[in-house]
């Protein structure tokens, strides 16, 4: 029983990073009704860029690395927007989708080339802290990951519901034509959505690096799949859905890793997706309104 609670709590804390990745997929989908399949890869790419700080200042603190990952993620988001959406006819749904697949492969290749395919150590905060309650422990670095992720989500929600840009983003996602009639520039909102989700992705990548201790090019594919699963389970376009589903998937895979081993756990995550697709295809929080 203790094992169960322990692995569940570790998983839920780590799941906050899945939630961030899920939010990135779901927000772009909500605003543009498009999938950006390169998102998780670009997020890992942002986290790698964070390590550049250590190249320049060998003794830079982890926070500087995280912040640089955050900024690099935003920049990568904008590049993805330009390369895959801005100059490609939006009306052709396959064109943008395939462009993002190309971008996913490109980012992957660049990472492999730059690192010779070897994992790199990633710094963390509070990795020497352990909170204990009897046999039960909370890892300080995982708690840090969780808190940082939750703060990012709170920041995003504040942006969406308290600012002019957030108002425009919600307007475009609910009724793009009416948003234009209100004088909102849809192109700008789309670009900003990529920058904002990119910033979140950079942080998510950095938090994943921090909790695992290393970054590896092998991370991009599973993270892409987990992100998409979180998006579907949460309900395409739903931010609360992505948050809940991220924590759920994190806890679920951690528990199954505990009982079935690391090689089998993703099998069960896929099974969970399958169960949702059959019994609740709209996800946990299917948005009430479709388009129009």
């Amino acid at each position, binding site marked *: 029983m203790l094992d169960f609670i322990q692995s569940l709590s570790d998983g839920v804390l780590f799941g906050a990073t899945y939630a961030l990745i899920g939010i990135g997929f779901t927000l772009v989908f909500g605003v543009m009704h498009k999938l950006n399949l390169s998102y998780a890869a670009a997020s890992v790419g942002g986290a790698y860029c964070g390590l550049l700080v250590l190249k320049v200042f060998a003794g830079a603190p982890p926070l500087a690395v995280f912040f640089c990952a955050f900024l690099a993620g935003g920049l990568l988001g904008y590049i993805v927007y330009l390369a895959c959406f801005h100059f490609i006819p939006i009306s052709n749904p396959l064109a943008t989708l395939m462009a993002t697949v190309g971008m996913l492969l490109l980012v992957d290749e660049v990472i492999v080339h730059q690192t010779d395919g070897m994992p790199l150590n990633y710094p963390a905060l509070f990795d020497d802290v352990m909170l204990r309650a009897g046999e039960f422990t909370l890892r300080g670095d995982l708690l840090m990951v969780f808190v940082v992720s939750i703060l990012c989500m709170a920041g995003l929600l504040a942006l969406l519901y308290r600012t002019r840009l957030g108002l425009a983003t919600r307007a475009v996602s609910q009724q793009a034509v009416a948003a234009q*009639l*209100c*004088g909102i520039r849809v192109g700008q909102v789309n670009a900003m959505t990529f920058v904002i989700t990119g910033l979140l992705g950079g942080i998510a990548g950095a938090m994943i690096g921090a909790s695992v201790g290393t970054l590896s090019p092998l991370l991009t594919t599973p993270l892409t799949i987990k992100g998409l699963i979180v998006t579907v389970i949460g309900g395409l376009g739903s931010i609360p859905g992505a948050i809940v589903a991220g924590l759920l998937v994190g806890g679920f895979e951690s528990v199954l890793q505990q009982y079935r081993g690391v090689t089998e756990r993703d099998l069960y995550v896929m099974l969970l997706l399958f169960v949702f697709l059959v019994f609740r295809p709209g996800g946990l929080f299917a948005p009430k309104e479709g388009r129009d």
Partner: protein
Amino acid sequence: MTALLEVRDLVTAYGKIEALKGVNLDVQQGSITCLLGPNGAGKTTLMMTIAGILRPRIGSIRFAGEEIAGRPPHAIVAGGAALVPENRLVFPNMTVLDNLHAGAYQRKDDFASDIERLFTRFPRLKERSTQLAGTLSGGEQQMLAVARALMSRPKLLLMDEPSLGLAPLVVEEIFRIITQLHQDGVSIFLVEQNAHMALKVAQHFYLMEQGKVTFSGTPGALAEDEVIRRAYLGSARA
């Protein structure tokens, strides 16, 4: 005298199909001008082209003396023309108040007093200001769509079938509001199927069929035209 809005030889196409085949019409400053026409005539296409959502293939649209054809929607709104679109298109998961804020998106000045004034004009919207727009009735959504367009303080209000699908009492309410707005100095270009109601408020009529303007005249001339009377006003002479 030059018109507030002048549309000349306007052609707008969806792919190869031309929905507007050379449209000419004027909206005079301070008037209510009404565009009639059967479904599929191209009325919505015209409105969307004026508002900048659709780009015309050829032709000119002059608004307040400036050429606006092909300009993006935000430039048209900034120039002082706002469209209340067909089917209202409110933001369903935003509150009534947020819908109004979206309408004021380009305003840099303080628009709190505008919202107060609109709430006096549309008391129902005030009662429901924190409710999600998607939960409003059709009539209330239409009021909201009008109020949202007014938040940009337009010189010209374009309205695409505001009475569509509304109960007769609500339609009367909408037309009462149109008259009030007109008295407040807003010029109005109105698309309507309900010719009876439109005859009571508009000073000039156009009829559009298959992408072309086929009639232009006063309410009197409209009521005199045998064909139009039969198609739009019922065959009996009033």
